[in-house]
Structures are given as structure tokens and as C-alpha cells.
């Protein structure tokens, strides 16, 4: 039996192989890996994948974790139906 996938990001189904390929393509920092692979853009918003990716990259690239700047955090921090925002700002 072939080994199963090794996931870095559960939300978007990104595997360690996907990360390795992106590294070969030249994506080296978390912000560009996020844009390339959608890591950190799913429902967990990076809570699981980003720490795991920091450890993985730190090992693969031989860079201390504090040198890998985390991707910028933007709202919403939680999944929310967009329609909740419909009631904002239309009072006037």
C-alpha cells in the first residue's frame, strides 16, 4: 500500500510534497507560500498549518523559526456569512 498523503494544511488539502515543489519553484517565505498554495487561507485561517509550516521550513531550509515572518493576519478571523455585513453602513 502506498503511504497516504502527509498534510500540512487540512483545510485546503496541501501536502508536504506540494510544499517541497513550491520550494523548488523558488517560493521561500510564508507569505508567498500562502499565495502559491492557499496555506492559511481556509477555515482555520492558519492556526494549524502556519506553525507546522514554520517548523517544516525551518528544518528544510536550515533557518531559525524567528527568521520566518508569519503571514499577515487579516479579518475576519473566523468564517462568517458575508451577509452579516450587509447591515453595516446603510443607516444613512
Amino acid at each position, binding site marked *: *500500500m502506498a*503511504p*497516504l*498523503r*502527509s*498534510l*500540512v494544511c*487540512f*483545510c485546503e*488539502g496541501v501536502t*508536504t510534497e506540494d510544499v517541497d515543489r513550491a520550494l523548488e519553484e523558488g517560493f521561500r517565505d510564508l507569505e508567498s507560500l500562502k499565495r502559491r498554495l492557499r496555506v492559511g487561507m*481556509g*477555515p*482555520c*485561517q*492558519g*492556526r*494549524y498549518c502556519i*506553525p*507546522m509550516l514554520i517548523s*517544516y521550513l525551518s528544518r528544510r531550509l536550515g533557518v531559525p*523559526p*524567528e527568521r520566518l515572518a*508569519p503571514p499577515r*493576519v*487579516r*479579518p*475576519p*478571523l*473566523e*468564517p*462568517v*456569512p458575508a*451577509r*452579516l*455585513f*450587509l*447591515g*453595516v453602513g446603510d*443607516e444613512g
Partner: protein
Amino acid sequence: MRIAEHPILEFKRENPHTFAFEGVEVEAFEGESLAAALWAKGVRGLRRVSWGVLGPFCMIGYCSGCLVEVDGRRTRACLEPSRPGLRVGRIGDYVPRLAAEQPGKAEELEVDVMVVGSGPAGLSAAIVSGESGLDVHVFERHFRPGGQLVKQTHKFFGSGELFGGLRGFQIAERLVSRAREVGVRIHTRAPVLGYFKEGFFAVSEGERLLLVKPRAVVVSTGAVERLLPFPGNYLPGVMGAGAAQTLMNEYGVKPGERAVVVGAGNVGLIVSYQLLQAGVRVLAVVEVMPEIGGWLVHAAKIRRLGVPILTRHTVVRAEGGEQLERVVVAAVDERMEPVPGTEKVFDADLLLLSVGLTPESRLLAQMGARMVWSPELGGYVPYRSEYMETSIPGVYVAGDASGIEEATTAILTGRVAGYSAAVRLLGPRRDLLEKREEALRLLREARRTPFSARVVRGLERVIVRVAQ
């Protein structure tokens, strides 16, 4: 399966009812999450994707492993309280529906102190600011307040003032009722979506948006469990140690029959003992380091019950189809790489990861607080004064969001943050300053254990001393 008998816990199973999952009736009780009821029924894989089935990892509303559709809405099954007659199903291709009803108008709410998260830190901050006469609102994502204390079943050390001798879930009950007694308003199922530069926090509560404008903020958002990359790590049955605690200690649901636990720190050792109490066989505890990380009394307790602790071992892969069936572990060399030929296979349906926690400090990062990476504290944490104020004036941090420790220090940092908020809004009143000093003194005392040495080292780099 539900736990019938437990040596220390009694499960109130009130108001039995059913809901439908994919057309099949599922039995549930009041106060149970859909995820717990589904797990009790034996439903493991909630998310199906083209290449396999994924299971829940966290059970506290952060991972995406329990995303389902409930009456046409997408939600996490672990954050959804069961109610009679709900129609629950796996998520398919998402077709946004036209909303049947318009959402309620966004409502503005001005408060003195906004507390984000209702764990030990948040409730303690809320209580001391509430006692000072301030208008305090706590916002909690889950449907019940208390944070992760609700699944802690061991008795706490310490004096009565720090709830010594009580079990975690009992401490949660005390904190919640004390908070309500002093007029704190606890909003449940009310996640904070972010801070907006117009000066408000957006909170989703019910079917409307709340725009909260606080005069001071305490961020006590806790932590999330760490995950490891290895083949099969997404299989239903692979989960965080804390997720298993939620199932068995909070809901009385057996997380599995045969377990392997990764990590022999205190969490791994305690959860192994709790698995045995819940009637789960623990096949092995594996620890990558040469030595057991947790207290030796905990290790001795599970060893006496026949659980092998394999040091210098790691998990190399998980195997299974619809759910976890086997766990393969191997010895590691001095570079922590698995040594070929040393594999051991366990027929397990549960693999718990207790490999550390990461501070959940995202709200502070989003607000623009100055953050720093601290390996000793578990990840990115905000710089703060010894009074728990972050680089943003009037914004405080407390508990695991400020660095991974434990519940007692969370209570104390919560009190410090709560008094600091009160001092900011009410002036440097002598009684407040004295009580804050007392909380700081207890905090220094609580950090005298050998396990705190690392934390104390980490704190030296993140606490910015300010002249008062």
C-alpha cells in the same frame, strides 16, 4: 460509544433527543455538541474530499475537520449544540443560498471592558474588573463558557484562593457564576471577527453583527494544539490530545478503543491516564526525546497500569481507509530521524498528538500589537509590560495567548490584566494597585516549579519594563 461508568465523573445526560445526519437518526443529549453526538454514534469521517476522508482534529472550533451543513448553514459540528430535529449533512459543493431573511441590523455596543475568550484567564480578568464596578462584556466562540477548564478533571494544587483541591471543570463553574454575580455579561456563540480601524471590534452574535467599542480590551484567546506532518495525519481517529479530553471528559464519549499517544510531556501522560479511566486501552506512549518530559509521578502511574513509554521514538505514519486502523512508530537517531528497520506497528483506532500548543494570539497580531517569536512560550506572543499591557495602550493579554503555561498562571495573569484595565479606567486607586501586586506575587510563586524555568526565561525577552 458513551462512557457508562467513570471512576470520577458523572455525566448528566438530560433531555435525550435526536437529530438527523445524512438522513440517519443520531441520539443526543442537551448540552452536547453535534460532533460529540456523532462520534458517540460511531460517525468518524465528517469531511469527504476527492482523495479521502478527514476527521476532526481539535474539537474546540478551530480546525476544519468537523465542518458540516446544519439546516443549510455551514458550521463546525463541535461548536453547534445539538437540538431536536436538526438536519445535518456533509458539506457538498458549496452553492451559496439566497438568504431567506435579511440579517438583523448591525448593533453598536459601548462597553468599559471587552474580554475576548471565557477561559480561566478571561473570566478572572472579567471578575476583577466587574468587582471594581465596570461594565464588562466577555465574548466566547463556544456555546458554553469556561474555555478548556471544562475538560480538566484533575485536582488543582495551591491554596483555596487559587481553587486548590478543586477539579478544573469545578473551577470553571465557580468562575462563571462569580462573573455573573458581579454583573459580567457573557456572550456565548459570539466569535470576534477582528478589529477595524474605525475603532470597533466586529462580533458575530446570532444572526447579526455587533460593533463593540470598548474603553479597554483583554485578549485571552487561549491556544491551539500542534499538529505534525506524517502520512495519514488527517485520518479520522488522529486528533489532538485535547480533542480526546473534550470527548471523554466533557461529553462522556469514548474517543476510541485502542490508543497510541505521541508526546510524554504532562499533557500526554495525563491524557493517557484519563484514557484508561474512560476504558480506552493505551497501547503505547511515544516520546521523541531521550527522557520523559512530564512529572515522573504521572509517568509512574501509567507505567504501573502496564502502558509502555517508548522514548527516542516517533510516529512515522498512520494507516487506514475510512478511519485510522494502524499506527507505525520507529526509533529515532540523534538527528531525530527515524531509523529504518526499527518500526513497530500498533492496531490502534486512536492516535493522540500531545506535542505542544501554540498561543492563539491572532487577534493581537491583526490589531497591530508588536509580536515576537518565543520558542519558550510556544510561538508568536505579544510584547507586554509586567502588568500585561501590550504595545497598544489599553489592550491587555492574559493566559495562554500570552505564552503557553497552565490554568493557575492563566487565572493570575487574567487578574493582573483585569486590574490593569480597571486602573486605566478608574485611576490608580490604591486598593486596585495593591490587589494587582498581590496577584503578581502569587504569579511569581506559581512560576517557581522546575517546569516554569523555561517560561521564565522566555518571559525575560518579552516583558518590557515600564516606568510607572
